[in-house]
């Protein structure tokens, strides 16, 4: 009897326990004004959360308990409680926040405000604005260097990567890149920062020490006009060996040897591929496909698309964590 009880108890426990590697992905749907929650074990949508207007930039907090989502048309950043799966709070930001970066401690949030050429600095705990930095026209991409000393902001119409000292909050360098820079990503060893130029069609490789462009990655897909190749999101493996670049209306993700900066493969995904995120174990990479309203799952080791998941309308940003 006892044994029976124990066994059935065990069975219940086993059935309800979350497997160790279960991650959740949060996807912002720009047009639906929702965030889709995806379970990365079953690759199914488990919840759709209503948020403010025009959700784009989206990021887990460092403790994975909350998700920040920039709702541009509401001029704020909303806070989703991961346990409750609903919006519980709002952070102040400047007008039309699009992308943001969280510092290593998760205490300070840097927000690109597209509408007034500023980067807003927000104290996450106090929910207050600490200051603003004037940057170029239409700030967008945001990245913090691995040592936390430099914040990169890209401005889309000025065509620059602004290097901002996070201590003094002053611009210390401006690096000209190709047209409409959208996203910046550091290598973990701080040896390079990559900036994608959507209209220019290139990824500029910048040496953060020299603060100069040292190489440019170009893309060439047979049968496609070069104007259709529009790099946006960038993902790099932690070992710094492989990078993935979303190519927008080219409907492909380029696999790039991060050492030689050569494209090794193009993976066909959905239409107008935007942004991407790795699962924390780096087994999978998920990319948002804006026009086809879905998310493609890429097996990182095999470099193959293995799954497509329908989400809301115009999926834009994605963040993945283990809650």
């Amino acid at each position, binding site marked *: 009897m006892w044994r029976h009880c124990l066994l059935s108890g065990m069975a219940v426990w086993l059935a309800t326990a979350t497997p160790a590697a279960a991650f959740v992905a949060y996807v912002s749907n720009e047009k639906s004004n929702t965030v889709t929650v995806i379970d990365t074990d079953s690759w199914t949508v488990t919840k759709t959360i209503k948020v403010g207007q025009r959700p784009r930039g989206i990021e887990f907090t460092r403790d994975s308990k909350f998700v920040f989502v920039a709702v541009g048309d509401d001029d704020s950043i909303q806070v989703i409680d991961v346990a409750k799966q609903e919006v519980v709070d709002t952070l102040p930001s400047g007008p*039309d926040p699009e992308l943001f970066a969280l510092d290593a401690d998760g205490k300070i949030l840097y927000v690109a405000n*597209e*509408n007034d*050429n500023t980067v807003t600095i927000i104290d996450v705990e106090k929910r207050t604005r600490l200051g603003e930095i004037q940057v*170029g*026209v*239409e700030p967008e991409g945001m990245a913090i260097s691995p040592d936390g000393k430099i914040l990169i902001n890209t*401005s*889309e*119409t*000025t*065509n*620059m990567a*602004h290097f901002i000292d996070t201590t003094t909050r002053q*611009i210390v360098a*401006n690096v*000209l890149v190709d*047209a*409409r820079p959208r996203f910046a990503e550091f290598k973990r060893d701080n040896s390079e920062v990559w900036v994608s130029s*959507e*209209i*220019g*069609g290139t990824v500029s490789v910048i040496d953060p020490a020299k603060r100069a462009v040292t190489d440019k990655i170009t893309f060439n897909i047979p049968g496609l*006009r070069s*104007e*259709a190749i*529009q790099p946006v999101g960038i993902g790099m493996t932690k070992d710094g060996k492989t990078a993935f670049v979303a190519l927008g*209306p080219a409907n492909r993700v380029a696999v790039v040897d991060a050492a030689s900066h050569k494209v090794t493969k193009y993976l066909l995904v959905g239409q107008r591929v935007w942004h991407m995120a790795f699962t924390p174990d780096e087994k999978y990479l998920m990319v948002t496909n804006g026009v086809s309203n879905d998310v493609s799952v890429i097996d990182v080791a095999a470099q193959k698309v293995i799954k497509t998941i329908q989400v809301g309308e115009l999926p834009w940003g994605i963040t993945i964590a283990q809650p």
Partner: protein
Amino acid sequence: MIRWLVAAVCFCIAASPVLAADPIEIGIGYLARAGVKPKLSLVELPAENDGLAGARLAIEDNNTTGKFLNQHFTLEEVRLKDNEDVAKAAATLAERTGFIIADLPADDLLKAADALRGRGTLLLNAGAIDDRLREQDCRSNVIHVAPTRSMLADALAQYLVWKQWKRWLFVVGSHDQDKLYADALRRAATRFGAKIVQERIFEDTGGARRTDSGVTLIQRQMPVFTQQAPAYDVLVAADESEVFAAYLPYRTWDPRPVAGSAGLVATSWHAAQDQWGAIQMQNRFAKLNSRHMTALDMQAWTAARMIGEAASRTKSGDPKAVADFLKGPDFSIAAFKGRRLTLRDWNLQLRQPILLVDGRMVVSVSPQEGFLHQVSELDTLGVDRPETKCRLQ
């Protein structure tokens, strides 16, 4: 004491941070005729600063970038009064600015271009859509930012053909520019497989555009005018002079859509365009000018931004360096059209997608899917390299 003071002053000078060198000043002129073009619709009457307002925004954008590069842009407007000599005005303006954005009729533009020949001043045509300026009358010192009539006509025709509205009832105004647009539309119909089932001329017999009982009269005139047409899918009107086309929608004898100079209209820009980041642009424009952004505003913005872009890439405000960069293979500009815009090197025309708008919304953007080209799909719009009559010199 004095020595101490002097020493202190010297120390202060030495210790003060090195002042940045004076910025490179880049002057841009804006040359246009005074007076506004007539419109049938009150809501479409252009503002007095139509065009200029776009250039002003671009100057602000250029200066935001320029502060990181030690470049400073200024804009100087010159409005020509009736009969004022354009060549003289252009030459005077060119003494102060190395670049002139022009919103001038074709003949005026040519006079200005020829007056500035050899001076090194670069003209950017933001207003004139005449194909001849890019063909037999092309000039090496003029870059064309405005689209051509043939680009607009092709953009419209591609969509109508995609929509399977291939039988056109064609109504043409009696003024010269109406006929030019009609020529472009006829060419487009032939290129893309539409058929003009019948052509009618709408004679401008004069009269006021605004009257107290206008609607009653128009409601009787337009159905009668469009009566007894052969079977057709869409009425295409060529009426750049704004005499009749805007009266056609909802008043045709047969229930048919209207396109061309009213109904579905091809244009380089519209206040409803919000794709590809354009909402930022529309917001910036509205904040600065307290009104909607027009096609002419956008063309002038793009012209001034092209100068800014070339100045930032070449780190120079020298007209020759800027012109060489613009005409070279590395130039491209982002202008909220979803792809980069480049120059056709054979006639210095800016390649650009064309919006199709109904007055309130963007209905579509051409080139349409499926119209292919070996170099750029944008070259399916307008006169292509093999057909050009332009010999740049």
